[in-house]
């Protein structure tokens, strides 16, 4: 069975890979958007924190015997606390300054984190076994679907839509949105805005680490896995615009799929297609697909 001269297995396989990449784009750009909304900082360390999440899971399994399911909860918590520490000790001091300083500081942090892991683990990478419950796969007749990959997509979707629900449909989320619009006014209503900012950064970092744990069995766990990804995620964020949570999710997944399709029909361009789309979007709709000019 062929579609446009491409065997359907190959097409479906690449679409699945695209969907998985798209899930990571979605979780990471969602975290970036939430952090940017309240802190006005682009978290350059996001990729490094994602990498850290994957490594913490690997370290936990190898040295402490912490299994995958426990890591899926524990690693984001640990990373989130680490994030809150960073916010309290460093980022907090930059809010009155130009936004660019936040970018530069987190860039420095990314280099430190990446450098430390590279010093300790080299760049060859470690492999993380797929948890037993999710090994094997389903035969769908037209393709073979590994269970773990299906789980990655499902878990990402649940986390993304869960975050969307919290932000758009709950009381807590309404504070967050109010803080994005006007932090002074929210403070005047008696909400502890500095605490909220700390928790928000922690939540964003926890999301990145969660994505890292999810990614550990799919990709090689290596110190540069984050920096390569984060630049693509930046392009995703430029394309989608950071104004809307749902926009981040949809753009992330959509671009992952487009990348997967490109890998089938014109593999040479698969590494660059997202950057090219970014250029086109900048020409036609500079604020991004879901963005607002500000």
């Amino acid at each position, binding site marked *: 069975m062929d579609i446009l001269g491409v065997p359907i297995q190959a097409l479906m396989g690449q679409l699945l890979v695209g969907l998985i990449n798209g899930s990571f784009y979605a979780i990471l750009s969602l975290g970036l958007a939430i952090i940017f909304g309240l802190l006005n900082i682009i978290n350059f360390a996001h990729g490094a924190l994602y990498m850290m999440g994957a490594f913490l899971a690997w370290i936990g399994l190898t040295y402490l015997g912490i299994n995958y399911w426990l890591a899926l909860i524990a690693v984001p918590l640990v990373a989130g606390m680490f994030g809150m520490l960073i916010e309290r000790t460093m980022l907090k001091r930059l809010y009155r300054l130009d936004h660019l300083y936040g970018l530069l500081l987190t860039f420095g942090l990314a280099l*430190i984190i990446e450098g430390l892991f590279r010093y300790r683990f080299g760049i060859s990478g470690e492999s993380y076994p797929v948890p037993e419950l999710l090994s094997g796969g389903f035969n769908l007749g037209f393709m073979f679907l590994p269970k773990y990959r299906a789980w990655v997509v499902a878990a990402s979707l649940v986390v993304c839509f869960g975050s969307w629900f919290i932000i758009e449909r709950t009381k807590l989320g309404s504070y967050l949105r109010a803080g994005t619009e006007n932090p002074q006014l929210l403070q005047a209503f008696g909400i502890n805005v500095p605490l909220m900012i700390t928790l928000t950064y922690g939540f964003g970092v926890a999301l990145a680490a969660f994505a890292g744990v999810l990614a550990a069995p799919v990709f090689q766990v290596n110190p540069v896995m984050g920096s390569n990804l984060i630049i693509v995620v930046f*392009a995703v964020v*430029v394309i989608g615009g950071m104004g809307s949570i749902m926009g981040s999710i949809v753009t992330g997944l959509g671009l992952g799929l487009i990348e997967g399709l490109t890998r089938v029909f014109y593999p040479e361009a698969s590494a660059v297609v997202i950057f090219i789309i970014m250029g086109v979007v900048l020409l036609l709709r500079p604020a991004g697909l879901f963005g607002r000019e500000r």
Partner: protein
Amino acid sequence: MRGKQIGWIVLIALGLAAPFVVYPVLVMKILCFALFACAFNLLLGYTGLLSFGHAAFLGWAGYICGYVVKEMGWSPELGIVAGTASAAVLGFVFGSLAIRRAGIYFAMVTLALAQLMYFFALQFPFTGGEDGLQGVPRGHLLGFIDLANTTNMYYFVLAIFLGGFWLIDRAIHSPFGQVLKAIRENEPRAISLGYDVDRYKLLAFVLSAALSGLAGATKTLVYQLASLTDVHWHMSGEIVLMTLLGGMGTVFGPVVGAGVVVGLQNYGAELGQWVTVLTGLIFVICVLSFRRGIVGELAALIKRSGIRM
């Protein structure tokens, strides 16, 4: 203006004397990066635009220069012109896209576009992929000065650096430079005063890209090599660091920053992986408590102590 004249004299004297004290190739490297950092500073320090993609101009000018000199037999001066011109064209394309977004988005757009150019450099056959362009001949300048001679090459590089530096200094202190500073300080006001802000930004971007290209093309001739290192995003980060550490928005700051960072990489080579960590630490320290940079802090110190320059 006396302080600046002293700075110029010190710079030229240091430039002339340096190869007798330090390994000339290292000084040439510092000069190339100093020019690159000054070109970058024109954008970050004077226009307030943070580009995270300047490695593309440095690296691609290097590839073009290396290719025309090695494969097409062009003379070194024409190679440098070709490299600089290609960086200017690339700068025009990048700039036209990037200035559509401001602030943080600007940084992300330039980073993403530079990553695009990195993948092109990796995939196009003429760049040599992972190997890069090796064995680029230095050739004869104007047909009779043999650049394979290190001393000749050194003074050629020094001349290029001083020329580029002078041009940047002129641009900063011209009416054009004043408009750039006005955009940095208060863009809406600059618009309301009737300046076509986008055109000024684009012009500054192209100028900065072209001079970065000049540095990159020259660097290719010095090392006789154009490689992926120069187009990688690490390089874009390094140039931000040099400018930040030396003092952004100061004339001599980027030169000092380039000297410190290149020196650190050279003499700290045995630190291995720690160089990345150290680079990150310097970033964090600069942002948290050293935002004026070395030259900026010195200038503030001199001002406070009441010495008239």
